């Protein structure tokens, strides 16, 4: 079951029996059978009737509202109200030791997956990535020995910095420049793509965590700011590079998105509407891509893995599993 993206602006969505009818300028442009989707993404300028919203809630379909590339809210139907799990989640959050343990595994998985990804690039394209690959390996050793969350975050931050210094080497289109990571505003098209991809990934994982009964706002590695989906950000670490960065690199290198698909909006690089749609399509396709899960020793689609990881995390938090087993790509 996939995600339905309504990115077409100024649409009006009505319910008719078990279907959604999408109108634009009073003409029907699409009919959707809701059972085929597990998530419904809608952009700011479009309208859902309450009927339609209720149908989606009743079918257990998440409705996520987007403004540009920012998730601004979500509407969820009956939730997994696992009170015991929520209590365990907060207890773990308050325990420095358990928080560190979870955060460490997340960081290690991120470092490992980033390394795996760079090793692939190095092999395929004979890029000189050895120094950064080595740095990531050493970072893993350090992370294994980190004494507290601050030290762990420092290690992770340094590794991310080194990784993004090497990142421009992966991009083969000369008209795409990359001057280091910039969140808001995105200073260049590559950053705009990364930000968009991360926002979509975060929305996915927020949904997976909620389905597993976890509170996406209570995190372990990310915990400093109130009102952020800290746990979704935590879980994202395993996937950022393999799922989003690589997709962005691929789309740029293969010319799926071009320099002219962006416009400059007072210093912020923005994706034009048609290109945004294209990105959504590619992202959706990638969710269905199968990858080998090293620890589970089998191939699964990303969306399946998102849900598995959320539940595996819940199991460790509850004390039902011996450890949190992250996603490691092969």
């Amino acid at each position, binding site marked *: 079951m996939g995600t339905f993206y309504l990115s077409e602006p100024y649409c009006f969505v009505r319910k008719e029996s078990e279907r959604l009818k999408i109108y634009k300028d009073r003409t029907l442009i699409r009919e959707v059978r809701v059972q085929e989707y597990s998530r419904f993404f809608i952009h700011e300028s479009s309208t859902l009737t309450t009927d339609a919203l209720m149908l989606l809630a009743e079918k*257990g379909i998440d409705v996520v509202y987007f403004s540009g590339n920012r998730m601004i809210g979500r509407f969820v139907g*009956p*939730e*997994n*109200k*696992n*009170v*015991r*799990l929520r209590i365990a989640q907060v207890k773990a959050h308050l325990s420095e030791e358990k928080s560190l343990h979870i955060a460490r*595994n997340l960081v*290690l998985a991120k470092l*490992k997956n980033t390394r795996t990804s760079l090793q692939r690039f190095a092999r395929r394209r004979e890029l000189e990535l050895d120094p950064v690959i080595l740095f990531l*390996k050493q970072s*893993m*050793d350090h992370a*294994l020995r980190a004494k507290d969350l601050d030290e762990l975050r420092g290690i992770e931050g340094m590794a991310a910095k080194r990784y993004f210094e090497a990142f421009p080497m992966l991009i083969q289109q000369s008209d795409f420049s990359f001057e280091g990571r910039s969140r808001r505003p995105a200073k260049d098209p590559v950053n705009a793509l990364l930000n968009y991809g991360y926002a979509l990934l975060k929305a996915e994982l927020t949904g997976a965590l909620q*389905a*597993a*009964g976890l509170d996406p706002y209570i995190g372990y590695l990310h915990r400093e700011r109130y009102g952020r989906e800290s746990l979704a950000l935590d879980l994202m670490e395993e996937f950022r590079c393999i799922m989003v960065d690589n997709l962005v690199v691929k789309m740029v290198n293969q010319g799926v998105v071009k320099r002219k698909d962006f416009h400059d909006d007072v210093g912020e690089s923005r994706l034009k509407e048609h290109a945004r749609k294209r990105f959504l399509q590619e992202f959706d396709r990638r969710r269905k891509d199968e990858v080998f899960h*090293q*620890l*589970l*020793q089998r191939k699964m689609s990303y969306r399946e893995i998102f*849900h*598995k990881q959320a*539940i*595996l995390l819940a*199991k460790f938090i*509850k*004390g*039902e*599993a*011996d*450890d*949190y*087993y*992250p996603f*490691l790509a092969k």
Partner: protein
Amino acid sequence: MEIFVEAHAINAYAYCPRRCYYEYVERVFYHNVYTIHGKLLHEHVDHAGREHRGERQLYRSLYLRSERLGLSVRCDVIEEAEGVLYPVEYKRGKQAGWENNHLQLCAQGLALEEWIGRKIPFGYLFYYGSFRREKVIFDDALRERTIQTIKAIRALHLQDQPPEGIDEWFRCKKCSMVDYCLPQERARLKGKVPWERFT
């Protein structure tokens, strides 16, 4: 009595105690096609009320509590024919004769007995798959097993961790909790992550 066991939990318990724990103690709500299917079928019996159908009188969606057994029960349908009241429970599938269904129905009978103060001698199971009714006699042996199962479920509510599951794949794969319970994954992921192998 603090904890009221739900009669529906009996069915889950008989299937697998772990499933019962997830569904009724942790109250996990995890979507999967089997549960959705069951839910849709239930919709038409879900409106409380009373009606006549030929000689029979029907009461729909009744909630009962037994203080004595610490049991709360939702009855799909209670019928009355020739002065005898009996519960009718609707089931997906066509397979008759499963003990778990008998236990759950018997629990309804017990709660109903306590409520009206009269003996309820039997009930019916109705199977959508075959459109058949199965008559279930509430004899002493069935009553005793029902009471024991309710006790076992009450004990589950006091546990911090789920009990062992049945971990039999032919049943797990049909279990509504399989995507949450992850029996195959649990078997694989034991102990700590062996990070030395990956650094």
